[in-house]
């Protein structure tokens, strides 16, 4: 009887075991990640600007493929077959560790939110989006010309893979464009990096202009509402470096009169100097600026603005988009009939490159009227 029991138990066990392995027995497929055959790049030609960090957004359409997924750049080459993997050279790069808020009290506080990491100049992030870091400059990567020849285009393939398999998406292109270190860049030729002219190779230069309002000409007593109008008085805006220090961290504002002589910034007597740029005193220990008779200078962190985050220093303030930095220099005077009139000089701008920069407002033809009537 015991034998029989054993026999029965044995049969039962075999049955249970054999059926427990159903997945194996019946050859059921294993679950793998999904890799769509239609997953592809929406954009296959990337034209990033050198010298600034660019990220394409939604460049890759996964067609519901499962993330996380790995993206690898393969076979980087020029159109004529030369190796183009130099663009993947690793550079020490400043990356964000925590969020910039515009509320930082010292320069060090800002710097603590960034840290140096080694990153290739061109890389793909987890979403397949292409990143070209600001470390890719025109010294390292040759920018494209106005005419792009295949031998200047950097081709590459992207291998996408997850547990569902892998595929190679071929012949993506990078056509880097020359760096434009600041904006607005109307005075900058975005093809060759030289001063901009109205026609290619022409002699007539194009300028940047600030926004002005409420300012009257000292000699004309006419409102200078249009900075491009020579009869009411043109106002040029220059964004330029005043030193060659690559690690510069200063930003100056200068106001030139029609004789190109610096005016005292204090003439803009209503200006809230602490709210123009997120700048600090020379030591960087507190919010502040250095005021001279020729300029006002801030100790800043570049780029400006640091991130696309609305702060009180950006255009539109805290409810704006945070895209551009914003400065406005105002003064008031007693106008005709004892009315207090306000004059304002303002500009939205960006500076991408680190250095000692100055932003110059040049009253080209007619000086502004600061005196009371």
């Amino acid at each position, binding site marked *: 009887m015991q034998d029989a029991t054993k026999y029965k138990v044995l049969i039962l066990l075999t049955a249970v075991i054999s059926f427990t392995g159903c997945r194996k027995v019946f050859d*059921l497929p294993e*679950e793998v990640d999904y890799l769509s055959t239609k997953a592809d790049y929406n954009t296959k030609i990337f034209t990033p600007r050198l010298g600034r960090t660019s990220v394409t957004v939604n460049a890759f359409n996964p067609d519901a493929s499962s*993330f996380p997924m790995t993206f690898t750049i393969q076979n980087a080459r020029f159109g004529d077959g030369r190796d183009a993997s130099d663009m993947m050279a690793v550079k020490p790069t400043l990356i964000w560790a925590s969020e*910039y808020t515009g509320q930082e009290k010292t320069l060090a506080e800002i710097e603590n939110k960034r840290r140096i990491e080694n990153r290739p100049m061109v890389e793909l992030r987890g979403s397949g989006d292409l990143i070209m870091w600001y470390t890719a400059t025109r010294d390292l990567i040759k920018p494209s010309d106005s005419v792009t020849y295949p031998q200047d285009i950097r081709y590459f393939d992207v291998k996408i893979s997850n547990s569902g398999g892998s595929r190679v998406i071929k012949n993506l292109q990078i056509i880097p464009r020359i760096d434009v270190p600041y904006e607005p860049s109307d005075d900058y030729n975005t093809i060759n990096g030289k001063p901009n002219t109205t026609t290619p190779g022409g002699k007539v230069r194009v300028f940047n202009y600030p926004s002005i309002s409420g300012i009257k000409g000292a000699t004309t007593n006419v409102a200078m509402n249009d900075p491009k109008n020579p009869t009411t008085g043109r106002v040029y805006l220059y964004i330029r470096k005043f030193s060659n220090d690559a690690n510069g961290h200063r930003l100056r504002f200068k106001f030139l009169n029609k004789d190109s002589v610096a005016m005292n910034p204090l003439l803009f007597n209503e200006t809230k100097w602490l709210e123009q740029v997120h700048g600090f005193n020379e030591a960087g220990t507190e919010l502040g600026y250095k005021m001279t008779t020729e300029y006002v200078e801030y100790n800043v962190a570049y780029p400006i603005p640091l991130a696309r985050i609305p702060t009180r220093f950006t255009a539109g303030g805290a409810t704006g*988009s945070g895209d551009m930095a914003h400065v406005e220099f105002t003064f008031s005077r007693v106008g005709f009939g004892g009315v207090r009139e306000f004059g304002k000089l303002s500009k939205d701008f960006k500076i991408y490159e680190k250095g000692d920069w100055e932003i110059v407002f040049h009253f080209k033809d007619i000086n502004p009227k600061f005196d009371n009537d």
Partner: protein
Amino acid sequence: MIKINTMRKHIILLSIFFSCMFLCEDLMAQAKKITLTGTVLDADTKLPMVGATVASGTPRRVVVVDSKGKYSIVVDEGATVIFTYVSYESKSVKLSPGQILLNVNLQEEKNNMKEVVVRGYVKRTRDQTTGSSALVSRKEIQDVPVGNVEQLLQGKVAGLNIQNNTGAPGMRGTVNIRGLSTIATTGSGDDAFLQPTSPLYVIDGVPMDADKASEFGFDQQGPGVSPLSLIPQEDIASIEILKDATATALYGSRGAYGVILIQTVRGQSEIPRVIYTSNYFVSTVPKLRETYGGTYERDFKLDQILRYGLTDDIYKITNTPFLADSLSAFYNNSTDWQDIFYSNRFNMTHNVSLDGGDAKFNYKTNLNYFSQDGIVENTGFERYSLNMNMEFKPSPKLSFFGSIRSSIGSVKSGSGSGVLQRVVDDSGQRSSLLPGPSFLLATSDVLTTLQIRESAGPKNITANMTANYELLPGLNIGTSGNYDYTIESKDTFLPAAANSQFARVYNYYSYGSTLYNRNNVSYTKSVNNSHNFFVNLFSEIYIKKNQENITQIERSPNDQFEGPLGYDGYNSKGGGVLTSFRDLKQASLAAAFTYDYKKKYILDVTYRIDGSSASGQLDPYSKNPSIGLRWNFAKEDFLKGTADWLSYGSFRLTAGQNIFPQGNLVDIYGRYNPYGFYNNAARVGIDYGQIPNPLLKAKKVLMYNLGVDAGFWDGKLDVVFETYFKKVDNELFDNRLSNTLGFGIYKSNGAALANYGYELSLSSRPLSKNSAFQWTFSINGALNYDVLTRLPEEYNGQYIDFVDQDGIGQYIAKRVGRNSLSNYLFINQGVYGSTTNVPVDPVTGLRMRNGSSGSYLNSYEGGDAIIWDANGDYVIDNRDRQVTGNTQPLITGGITNTFQYKDFSLNFYASYTAVRSILNNALSKRLLLLGDPFGTKTVPPAGSLDIWTGPGDTDATYANAYDYEHGRYMGNFRYEQSLWQESGSYLKINQATLAYTFKKKLAKRVGVNGIRTYISSANLVTFSPYSGPNPESVTSLGKDLSSGYPNPRTYTLGFNVTF
């Protein structure tokens, strides 16, 4: 010499004669005849065992017990008398000398193997069947009045997964045997539902399509009452559930989803008897959504605005009178809106059953009235039915069975569609500050619910006739034919005040018919009593027709004008024949062969060829074989010694294939539309939406089953263990075609899935059979895994229907290798404790954002939901969704507990479902209500929920629901996230019944034969970790809609009187 010889012969003969005489005399002296009388009662119910046989002596003398349980038989003194009754344990009693009175109680047979079952329209005992099946007795489905008897099967059979997900009277939940049989989903958003794959019901041999009402989803047209709801539970004698392919093989071309056989009561009393059953029951409203009322609501909203609002919002308060003007009588209310729509109901049912007759001729008539008002205002179900059957055996060779079932159902679904009550749900969410409904003040949706007039319901008549003739011993020919005709209608009239000042008239009419015929020839032969053969050849024909029409007039001229209707074309919306049109024909030819050796080894082989007009016209036939083996090992000689503890034991192994026709005319032939005239020639062209597939095949279900049955200690413990593998092939799939091809979709057979699982049923009667106290306990459970095994090639292993299922973004993902129906959701990982915890994109310096709008306002901050950024781009968008969860339960089962002491019995039935993910959309909706303080919706208190309390609260479950100005950029309570994906496990006490059977004497005193009375409660309590109202009230795709119809708890007082 010759004379002497003859003499001698004579003497010998004479001596033989005399010796015989003496012997006989001896016998005669012993065999004193007596007339034995007595009563035969059921040991449990103490009801008379009408029709039981009492036998004694050789040649056997047999009498039948009469309607009062009495018998009278002439037997020899001191003889042995045997009492038998189908599915009861027979009892043999040796009379003591002089005994002339013998009262006997018969015990119901609890040994599963002796039950007689009908397999392929042929009776066999269960130990002779190879297939997998389970029997539910009449007793288990009596004491709770329900509109649909299916509800009561929940948890009674391992592998039969029933989810009673609606409390709407007369409607049905979902039923699946052994896991999923389809992956086809229809409807969009919240309404997405899984195409029902109910088993085929066969009622007294008449096949019935229980899905008919539900195949077009929740918002179906028409009354939506399942045909099953038209069968009164009092008329059911037994229900058998067939699970594997060998068991279902003989039920033909529609048995792929399993078969449920319902046997109605037959006449079994020589003296006509009347049984009257009546139930009085109260349906009570379950716990509804809590809300703040009156000034609490106003204070809460104002506080929320002052705390989280922007400057502008504070100004806005003054422009929102119902917040600002608390003294206005119009806004100074505390209306309980839910109370207007939900209330407890009192209902009753009456059933009269008359039966009579003997084995040669018997008849039964059952008259039933069932009425149940729904707990939602203006909803309910009523049923009137008259069912009759009769059996006639004019000679032992010839037999007839005939039945007629006729029923009228009447259903009211208020403003909803039966299963869903959207308007009620919306209205119930109204702010308590608003004044309650009155004709002039109420808004139209409230009036819709309260004022709609509706007349709807199915009317069904089914006739069935079966004849059988034994040509030669063992050779039978039989024929059976039945016709089922159902018309359904729904007329609703919505008065102008409830419908933007214009009355609306809606009319629905449909008819459906099924003609079914089966002819068979069978032959049985037994050789040497050890080799038994059975061959059965039969043919089957189905003709099914169905047509549904609607007419709708959106704006009728006035409230008084309800018809005849004619109006301009603009306002006559809808109408014509709906896409459910069907004219289906099926023909099958089948053969079955059974062989057994000494009832020890049994072999079943079946083969059938099925042709269906629902399959592509180029290949309408499918061939379906099945094979089954059974080994009753307990009968083996080497186990002889175990008889004292092993009552029976067997192995069963089956494999077989079955089909289910699934196409419709459009799928096979395409749709052709009239395109007007050109040059006086009518143009009819194909509809480019779908390209016809002339090769469309029926769904094919292949199943392997391995079962072990064992009984120990003579009924003390019965065990059934089964494991199976079920492969569903040729699943219909809409392949979306490339836009260069002209046609939109192509219906292919490209998908397939598989189920495998284990089922275990244990039942035990631990106490001695003779004890006054009886306890029966049984538990069953089924573990089912489903795996999607194939999708059309071009989808490369995953399909997410973004097009059809849009709405709330809860897409269903179908991924090969995984459970077939998963969710495609954002993964919620908790709540950001504070803003500094939000990750910052190292490249751009921006905080994690919601959506790629690029606006800073979309940045996450403390108190927002942490959603997994799967692709690492610091933007939460659709690409971060993951395939997750399983919308179908993994484990289902039930527990039965019966106690009996003398005339009292106490039953508990429970069922459970475990390992299932359900989406708590009700909670999502509830939290979203907190995000709109200016809206005129109610405020549900959320204090008990684990909501983020402030910076530093890192382990909250739910994001800050109150910060509405910021919250609207974040979608913290979006439906499509794993936060709502909760465990849908539950243990439900389905039913508790206390019954008392009056003493015979007492019953007699009031002039009846027997009275049984009982109190019971259904849907008593549900235990679940689920945070929503009821884990069972979810759609077949596991979504908990707050607009579902809540399941009421019912309390019943019932009587059962036998005259």
